[in-house]
């Protein structure tokens, strides 16, 4: 007898666009921004400009994907920038010592997740706020960088150089780097993981309400530790990509990157309290930051402080529109 009345109101209302609305709005705004660039600067319409955005932000993208996991559970990971730098430093230092590239890759890719795992454990078992734990992780990793070497270490290894300078492109001369392909692979894997596996769904559940998730019999602790490990892994991959990108390890590289990454994830529609957001949104978030940067370089008339003010202003305009249009359509 109750079923009949329950069926009425919402049953046939299409729900899909509503859930994806923030992402769609972001996408639309991104296109508008790109359009503005094209209309203002002639060379902006080159395909390579778009490809460059990917080439230049590949590592950021990978790290942001890891951060998406963490933020989806309602946590935060401030250590990413330092872990990226540490991974690059470790790789450069080991390569300089003459270790084979394959071994260096393995070692470098283990350090990040190991640190992430430890941080996850501290957060879960000792119930310390993620912000503090990962801040300590950030100090630690940055400290390790200067500890390893206080000057930048160049990488001359053949494999690294090949990865760095290989151009995959069309006859017209447009190309992407291998890093971009790796970044795309990471994005796809993450999207699959989040949408189609138990682990991914548990990430959303923990972010929605971790207490409920616990009572629903979900492995909350394991998931929480896992997301920091994933974020550590993504940072490590990001670090490797960055070392491909710059062919060196520098102790002060990627300072403040965590804020860019968090900004990208949030602009992509994720909510910091957890439970809602998509990897695709994160990709858009990274692109937004990249396009803003490109617009500013293309302009080339801003001095240092105006650069900052304009970045802030563009960010503001973007977020405001995103928010207002989002509300409007809801």
């Amino acid at each position: 007898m109750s079923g009949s009345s329950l069926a009425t109101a919402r049953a046939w209302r299409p729900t899909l666009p509503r859930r994806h609305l923030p992402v769609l709005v972001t996408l639309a705004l991104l296109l508008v921004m790109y359009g503005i660039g094209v209309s203002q600067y002639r060379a902006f319409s080159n395909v390579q400009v778009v490809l460059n955005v990917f080439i230049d932000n590949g590592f950021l993208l990978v790290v942001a994907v890891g951060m998406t996991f963490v933020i989806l559970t309602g946590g935060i990971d401030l250590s990413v920038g330092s872990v990226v730098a540490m991974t690059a430093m470790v790789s450069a230092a080991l390569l300089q010592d003459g270790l084979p590239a394959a071994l260096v890759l393995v070692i470098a890719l283990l350090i990040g997740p190991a640190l992430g795992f430890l941080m996850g454990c501290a957060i879960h078992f000792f119930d310390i706020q993620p912000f503090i734990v990962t801040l300590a992780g950030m100090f630690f990793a940055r400290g390790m960088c200067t500890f390893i070497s206080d000057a930048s270490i160049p990488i001359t290894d053949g494999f690294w150089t090949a990865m760095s300078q290989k151009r995959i492109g069309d006859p017209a001369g447009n190309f992407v780097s291998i890093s971009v392909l790796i970044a795309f692979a990471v994005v796809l894997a993450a999207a699959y993981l989040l949408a189609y596996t138990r682990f991914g769904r548990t990430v959303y559940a923990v972010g929605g309400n971790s207490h409920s998730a616990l009572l629903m019999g979900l492995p909350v602790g394991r998931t929480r530790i896992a997301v920091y490990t994933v974020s550590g892994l993504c940072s490590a991959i990001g670090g490797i990509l960055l070392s491909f990108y710059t062919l060196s390890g520098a102790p002060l590289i990627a300072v403040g990157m965590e804020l860019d990454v968090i900004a990208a994830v949030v602009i992509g529609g994720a909510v910091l309290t957890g439970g809602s957001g998509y990897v695709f949104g994160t990709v858009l978030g990274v692109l937004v930051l990249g396009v803003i940067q490109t617009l500013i370089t293309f302009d080339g008339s801003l001095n240092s402080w105006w650069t900052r003010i304009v970045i802030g202003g563009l960010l503001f305009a973007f977020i405001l529109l995103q928010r207002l249009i989002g509300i409007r359509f809801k």
Partner: protein
Amino acid sequence: GNSDTGGDPGGDETMTLGFSQVGAESGWRTANTTSIKEAAAEAGIELKFDDAQQKQENQIKAIRNFIQQKVDVIAFSPVVESGWDTVLKEAKDAGIPVILTDRAVDSADKSLYKTFLGSDFVKEGRLAGEWLVQNTASATGPVNIVELQGTTGSAPANDRKKGFAEAIAANPNLKIVASQSGDFTRAGGKQVMEQFLKANPDIDVLFAHNDDMGLGALEAITAAGRTPGKDILIITIDAVRDGMQALADGRFNFIAECSPLLGPQLMELAKKVHAGEEVPARIETQETTFTQQQAKEALPNRRY
């Protein structure tokens, strides 16, 4: 800005220079930027200026975008010395000559850039150290030195430390008793100096990696009841106006100059490079050192 002005090679006569600056992290850097902008305007060169906010990533992005915009010459002050090969190769493939300013890169392939215009940080440190060795030659007992380093891991900090250490090795009496990073800022210099003074009762010399830290340390020294310039010799690097003033006032003892006024030299080079002329691979900025007396004379016509 709105119109696309870069990127018509061989079109009209104006030449376009893409310049990627490190950031605006200090007064020195700002003076450097100003010098370049003014010189470009004067030389009739169209400048595409980009501020990388101390990030190498941003500089690489900027260079890529300069390539897309087909500027005539690219110049930049690298944030760090390594990691430029890939993007420089792209510039080379696009046929755009590159000039380094202020700081070298460590590429093995020297054909990736035309020339490097800038000062030598190691030399600055060495000059500072040499002056100290000369002026303490008469000292019999140990001379205790404290060092205020720049941002940990940054190139000027590393190099100035290195040059200074090399120079003072000449006199075994000279000993660095404490060395700590003051992050190139006045506040940092002051805070660190306060602790130096408490931990080491008999400091004879302060070597600061830039004027600002030295200026901060001045305050700490005064507050501790010592007289800067007399009780404690102060040696710094840069020679910005406030530092020169302190030197002229007798509160500093020696400054090794690190001149930011690269603009005119850079524009000249850019034109030559654009015209396809040969230029030397290394050009040093005209720099000097200042003692208190020289500072008094130079102060009235300092530009920054």
